[in-house]
């Protein structure tokens, strides 16, 4: 009974009934998903990985017109937000949120994209009774989108995955969502290994691997014999990374080790052909002002780089000389600007001349994002 009333409200939603609908939806969330993890960021570490929407069994169903109604409702929420998020903390604008609605449907609807295309058509299919199979219940869809708007829960956590390079990496609360900028580290490694076959067959380390994205990206471009050792101190990260490694069938090429930075790497000390890392680099004082999606939902452990944001980067700098073999390559992501200058200076002038060709590389937005170089 409750549900049917609930549905009736979905389909007849208008700006005026919005507030009413919202309160119903919250009720629904607390009833149907008592273990909703959106509020408990990483406080309760889960060792089991939450299966992302696009990989779930399609057990639910909905008609095209029901989905259409959901989409309309979701868009109404978006228009009620307008540019509020953008103005507040440079968060997502309406255009981006609308695209996320579409992507969410792509992940949830078990059918070809034509169905999703039909959903974005305003006029023709409003009364379409065709039933499609869903990977999440319609009610869950309402809850998820409400969390997106009300709690600013990141889209990637809603659907449980992030498209990164040509990969679809599973993510969940407690693991940093891989950023587009970091994709470039794989490009740089690709260039280096294409020039030096020896490096392509060596051992590479990804420190603080998180979801494992960087490690997987690199493992896929190494030649036979090349391996990646990926470390992370977080248990959630290791289990999510392991899920992703298995999904890409790279168990033989990537070894995951739980531990802090270089600690789990004693056995390969001085033997590494390459070392990459995207360590926490945001200065502690900036954490409070972060965009809500980041500050309120992503793990502080993966973001906070200490007073100047340099704590872990410097730790990496200090230990790289011992970890890398001669000719080994390193690439670190930084907060940009003065931070990358500082790190480049450390690697060039304060490392007993252990490194050569130290360079600062800009990301596609022109921010001096990366520091790279080679062990002498």
């Amino acid at each position, binding site marked *: 009974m409750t549900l049917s009333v609930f549905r009736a409200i979905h389909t007849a939603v208008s700006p005026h009934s919005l507030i009413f609908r919202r309160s119903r939806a919250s009720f629904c969330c607390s009833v149907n998903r008592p273990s909703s993890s959106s509020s408990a960021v990483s406080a309760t570490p889960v060792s089991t990985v939450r299966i992302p929407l696009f990989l779930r069994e399609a057990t639910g169903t909905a008609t095209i017109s029901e989905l259409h109604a959901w989409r309309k409702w979701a868009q109404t929420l978006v228009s009620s937000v307008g540019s509020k998020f953008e103005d507040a903390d*440079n968060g*997502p604008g309406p*255009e*981006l949120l*609308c*695209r*996320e609605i579409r*992507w969410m449907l792509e992940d949830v609807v078990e059918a070809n*994209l*034509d169905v999703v*295309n039909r959903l974005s*058509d305003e006029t*023709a299919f409003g009364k379409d009774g065709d039933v499609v199979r869903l990977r999440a219940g319609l009610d869950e869809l309402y809850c998820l989108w409400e969390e997106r708007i009300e709690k600013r829960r*990141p*889209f*990637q956590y809603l659907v449980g995955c992030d*498209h*990164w*390079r*040509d*990969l679809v990496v599973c993510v969940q609360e407690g693991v*940093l*969502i891989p*950023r*587009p*900028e970091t*994709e470039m580290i794989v490009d740089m490694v690709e260039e280096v290994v294409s020039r030096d076959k020896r490096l392509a067959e060596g051992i590479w380390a990804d420190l603080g691997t998180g979801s494992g994205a960087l490690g997987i990206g690199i493992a896929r471009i190494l030649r036979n014999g090349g391996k990646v050792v990926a470390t992370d101190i977080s248990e959630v990260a290791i289990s999510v990374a392991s899920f992703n490694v298995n999904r890409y069938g790279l168990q033989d090429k990537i070894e995951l080790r739980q531990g802090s930075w270089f600690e789990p790497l004693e056995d390969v000390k001085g033997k590494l052909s390459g070392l990459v890392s*995207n360590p*926490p*680099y*945001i200065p502690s004082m*900036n954490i409070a002002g*972060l*965009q809500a*999606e*980041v500050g309120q939902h*992503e793990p502080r452990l*993966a*973001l906070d780089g200490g007073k100047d944001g340099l704590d872990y980067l410097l730790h990496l700098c200090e230990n790289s000389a011992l970890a890398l073999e001669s000719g080994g390559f390193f690439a670190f*992501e*930084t*907060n*940009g600007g003065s931070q990358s200058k500082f790190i480049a200076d450390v690697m060039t002038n304060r490392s007993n001349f252990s490194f050569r060709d130290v360079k600062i590389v800009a*990301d*596609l*937005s*022109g*921010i001096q*994002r990366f520091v790279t170089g080679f062990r002498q």
Partner: protein
Amino acid sequence: MCFALLKRSSIRHFTYFNLRNHRISSLSVIISSVCQSQTVEASFARSARHYFTSSSAVVTPKTLISVSSLAHHFSSLSSLESRKTSEGLSVDKILDQRWPILDESQSDWRSHAAAIALSIQVIKKRLKWPNLVLRAEHLSSEVTRSDIWENPDYAGKVSRDHGICMGKIKEVNGLEQELIEHVELLKLARDEGDSELELETMKALLRMRRNVKEKEIEALLSGEQDPCPCFIEVQAGAGGTESMDWAAMVMNMYKMWAQRRGFHTTVVDEMPGEIAGIKRATIKVDGDYAFGYAKAEVGVHRLVRISPFDSSKRRHTSFAAVAVIPILGDVSTHVVIKESDLRIERFRSGGAGGQSVNTTDSAVRIVHIPTGVTATCQNERSQHQNKAMAMQVLQSRLDQLEMARQAQLNSQLTQSLTDISWGNQIRTYVLHPYRMVKDLRTNYEVSDPDSVLEGDIDAFILSFLSASLDKKDNYLGNGTGSRPNFVPPLFLSCTGLGSMNQV
């Protein structure tokens, strides 16, 4: 059956008919018929006789078919002119009879034959027959050059093109032959009073009539790029929300059209309007002959309606421009893009980036510095994929620019090449005060704009393609022979026209 009673030419056609229907049981029938036939080249007759007499092979339908295709092979190589029978019956003669063409349901062989002959004529016209034959002869001499394989890329292209040309010629020759044989066979059946044979031949004629009608449409898409997938770009004219809404309607029309045709579409780039609609959007259309069809849509589309965005309910005219770019499949024809000529940047990014920002937006813009051509993609879910797609768009734009440049150099396309300017209107959609969609190029019109806007545009496309190919002055062609009006993809400035009030 006593062959002595039959006319010599008829024997062959009787054989032919049986060959096609796998009904031959007697070896001697074939040999005698092949030997007596005057229409098949003497060389073939000799080799066929040799084949059948020197070996004691059991004749299966399969070997018969191969013999018959061998005959086709010899005949199509030896002569490119129209097929004739011993009695001098040819497709042209059938046309000259001016037999009335009746509805398919009318069981009249003359009408069928005339319809088929007409279709063959249309197909030849669309294929630009004289050019095609010249080109085939040229390619044949190229292929046989002894030094051709010194340049394997060129050799590959020439032999591929040669194969395509010869294939088309053989197909048409085959159609002509088939028609004449059907007609002769029918006459024979009548002379002999063989009503079963007559009935079967009538059926075969009808089948052929339907078949060549389809081939007519195929012949519309005989351009080199026609089989390629393509990008369709729609840009709103000036005039704000009203024309942005119109641009979105046009884009939607193509998406639904593609869906009807079974094409797969992906949105590459989309700049939404502030209130409604789109400022500009690009979709990729995958499917057989996507470019061949879509190229007919290039130009400016004009809408007249009472604007839903105008509170005083005035009539508005809005414009949307459409460009279509083929995505060339043959990598060797791609323009080579130097990495150093590119500027690749994140599009619309702001703030610190990196860990401080969580966004699902990873739009990429690529600028080709020497030409200033740009491409953006924002609808893929990762930066890597946005970059790859933008690169594909850029490649296609540069390829098309290069094609246009070459065409101008050879002054082959100067006649048909029209710049996409806002004056170049191709179609008008009127929703008020009356309802009509009219193509200004062909004057084709329908009175149901809704179905057109829901993607029912094939009739417009086909009428334009036939009009542009069947024009009299086009018959002799222009060298390339295969590129109807396509225009450069770059949207030029859209000043001047836009949305205007018509109070």
